[in-house]
């Protein structure tokens, strides 16, 4: 089992998929920073002075980390950054779920879709599960990387 889960065949696919997901997620945010700033504002977790800066920088870090995974350059650093980002996303959405603040995730789309409170809460739960799934992918990369470390 362990052998299959850390097999290079799986690892390379996880790496490409995770990289692609982050590149795809970054593009709409890079294209429209004001909308993404609005999304970040809606989370009510980021101090006012940092909202615009994080809206500008975060998508570029996502894009570069995603590209690094796809290209196989600086894989570990990119994987770690993506893991940190995912952890932040999961915590941020969970805090808002906990305090019943229904928001749009802003993960892959930054347009306001005019959803109802209930739709948003449901989608936020789905987003947390999806992000946990991606965190598992990061875990796989980490595990496989650890196994291949001693010989190299």
């Amino acid at each position, binding site marked *: 089992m362990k052998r299959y889960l850390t097999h290079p065949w799986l690892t390379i696919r996880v790496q490409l998929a995770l990289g692609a997901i982050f590149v795809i997620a970054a593009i709409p945010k890079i294209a429209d*920073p004001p909308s993404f*700033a609005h999304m970040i*504002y809606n989370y009510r977790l980021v101090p006012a*002075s940092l909202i615009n800066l994080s809206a500008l920088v975060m998508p570029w870090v996502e894009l*570069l980390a995603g590209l690094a995974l796809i290209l196989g350059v600086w894989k570990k650093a990119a994987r*770690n950054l993506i893991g940190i980002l995912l952890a932040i996303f999961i915590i941020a959405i969970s805090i808002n779920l906990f305090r019943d603040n229904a928001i749009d995730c802003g993960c892959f789309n930054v347009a*306001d879709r*005019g959803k*109802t409170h209930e739709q948003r809460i449901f989608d936020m739960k789905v987003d947390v599960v999806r992000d946990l799934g991606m965190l598992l992918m990061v875990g796989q990369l980490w595990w496989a990387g650890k196994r291949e470390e001693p010989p190299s």
Partner: protein
Amino acid sequence: MKQNTIFQAVAIVAAGIILALVANAFASRDRKVSLVGTYPNALKVPAREVPAAPPVAPPVTQTVAMTTQPSTITVQPTATTATQPTATAAIETVGINPKAKTPAAPAPTTTTAPTPHAPPATPAREFNAHPDKPYIEIAYNDVKALHDKNVLFLDARRTSVYEQGHIPGARTYSVWESDIDDKVNKLFAERNDQAAQNLPIVIYCSGGDCEDSHMLAQKLWGIQFNNVYVYKDGFPDWQQHGAPVHTGANP
């Protein structure tokens, strides 16, 4: 080995910061953000709106308008008790940086004419200055009355949305775009005496839980605009009432 990974991660973040700043510097006006934004309620979780209220409200106001005079329109003062520090900060921004930049669009020509003359036939409610509150939320009937009086309207939605259709005469004032402070400064320069600042201004966005207009109202209140109204149900409600809509980049 491990140190190398940390260095690479830092390098990726640094490259991200540089690319972000360069991209923002070259971004078009409506895609650009100011590096440090001013959002008074950034950490304040909004109270949940009663979901049944918006669909029920319009029919009620309509029946009231049918059976009684428009003078019975109720204006609900908002629960917002904004603090003056925000205001002072905004005044400072304006004071330090009074850019007398005139925009390319012929914005000032259309809607600056205020209300020195008496209101029209219907005894509508009076829209007096309210320095104690940043804004008062109003519904369609009041909005229409003010629009008929050529009061200044500001559209707080994104410019791209504004161009697809807006209330005739409204100027685009998106709070998320980088030039908002310039626009606010310009308005301040236009209306720089007490009397002009007490003229009504109506701000709207897309209704529902949209709070861009409230944010803009706070900004204006901060620089002594004491008679600001927020069209609570916003542009969708305006369209629902079949009121005129103007498309394009000009007011």
